[in-house]
């Protein structure tokens, strides 16, 4: 637990990272609902109420798309921050197992990331309920719970992927570059071909969305296997490199 708290401290005290993570998780929801509310107030005939299921779904898709950048930043920092600062060897010489040092990064990073995502999600859920109009599909408790799980899954997977990759590469900047290129360009491009749904994590996540907005041909069991593989493989490589690399 002390190691986890130390990991959390290292992330929390990076002002730039904290600011970026707050903006990337909260801004999409706050700005999105603010714009919808203003549009509805200005022209209610043309723009419906800001709440309701559709707006919740849209805002959460936006959250997962932009918030994933925050997850990558946090994951990459948790994975390579010590090595980048040259502090990892100072931790190794304490005699503490390298695997324990690696493992502590996971809860430490999630303790930093998930509260921000939770606040953002809570704002979206509350706004979608309180700002809903009479003619809109209502937001039920079940919907909120299912979407909460889906958003959390999305964020945790992006975080773990970034953590594994950065632990393996030992470079925060390189990892962020590679992962952003993958998440924002390569993966969507490959998904659009429609031929790799059975191996792509974004296809698996899309298939697990409570009300899918993209059509993907991935079954639940395949989606689970794909996500487990995309999580475990980079984590295993990251753990192996952390355990064996010269410090």
């Amino acid at each position, binding site marked *: 637990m002390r*190691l986890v708290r130390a990991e959390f401290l290292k992330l929390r005290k990076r002002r730039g990272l904290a600011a970026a993570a707050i903006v990337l998780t909260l801004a999409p929801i706050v700005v999105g609902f603010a714009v919808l509310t203003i549009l509805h107030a200005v022209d209610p005939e043309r723009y419906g109420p800001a709440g309701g299921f559709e707006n919740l779904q849209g805002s959460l898709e936006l959250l997962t798309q932009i918030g994933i950048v925050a997850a990558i930043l946090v994951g990459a920092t948790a994975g390579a921050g010590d090595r980048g*600062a040259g502090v990892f*060897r100072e931790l*190794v010489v304490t*005699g503490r197992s390298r695997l324990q040092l690696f493992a502590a990064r996971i809860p430490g990073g999630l303790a930093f990331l998930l509260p921000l995502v939770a606040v953002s999600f809570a704002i979206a859920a509350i706004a979608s309920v309180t700002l809903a109009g009479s003619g809109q599909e209502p937001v039920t408790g079940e919907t909120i719970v299912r979407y909460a799980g889906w958003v959390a899954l999305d964020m945790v997977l992006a975080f773990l992927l970034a953590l594994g990759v950065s632990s393996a590469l030992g470079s925060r900047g390189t990892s962020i570059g590679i992962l952003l290129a993958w998440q924002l360009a390569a993966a969507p491009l490959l998904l659009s071909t429609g031929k790799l749904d059975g191996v792509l994590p974004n296809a698996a996540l899309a298939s697990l969305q409570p009300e899918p907005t993209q059509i993907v041909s991935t079954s639940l069991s395949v989606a689970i296997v794909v996500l487990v593989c995309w999580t475990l493989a980079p984590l295993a490589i990251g753990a192996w490199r952390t355990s064996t690399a*010269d410090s």
Partner: protein
Amino acid sequence: MNDFIVETHALTKRFGSRVAVDGVDLRIPRGSAFGYLGPNGAGKTTLIRMLLGLTPASSGTMQLRGLPVPERRAEALARVGAIVEEPRFHPFLTGRENLQIVAAAREPAAHARIGGALDLVGLANRADERVNQYSLGMRQRLGVARALLGDPELLILDEPTNGLDPAGILEFRGLVRRLVGEGRTVVLSSHLLDEVEKICDAVAIVDRGSVVWQGPIDAIHGGTRTVLVAVDDEPAALALLDRHEVEVTAEGIIVRLSTEAGPDVVAGLNRRLVNAGIGVHRLELSRASLEARFLEITSRLEEAA
């Protein structure tokens, strides 16, 4: 309990075809200040990194605190503190927070030692400033504080006086002697031979990956002491001293004596010169400095290579 806190046997590290540490047999006595000396690239830091588990050995065995490593690395390192090369920190954290990070990786009692360690190195009043505002000397002292968190039996300090001003070096010297006085062993890897000579009880000299000499600091001065003799009749003095190994320099005649030679031998030398009617202007007993011996040992190897 074993008399040696560090023992290595045939310890070797290869990087491809290059041998960085070549079959090192090193024995560091408990409760001493031990100097680990060598020219740049001699393999000093590589050996320290192997001892601390930062890089694996290619072959050979090593023991820390009587425990074999890497087999019982965690147990062995629990009471070892170290600064390897320059101490590194998270610059965005304060000095105290940086110590908290490392204390979290040690036993729970390490947290309680943070205040005392900061006091000991004179950083208590700057501990809550971010490390990126620290001078090099302050970082060095913070590194020592961090190394003390584990209440170490063994401290391994790589170039610990880098960045310290003369007052800081003097304080550091006192700190090392104090730690040794508490029964701890301090290993100093340093190129500042004068510092090592002033602080350490024993030394090892490493060159091209091998330990070429190790033993008590008094013994490294070699089998000879010298007496500088300045006289008014040099040829007559040289004739009188023909049983000794001598060297004529601009300052006078340097006479080599055995290490056992004391003031009585020098007095006898003086008496013989005066009785022979030779005027003596200067008579000065000295012994080779560590620096001279270090250069002698390492350059002798260079010549042989």
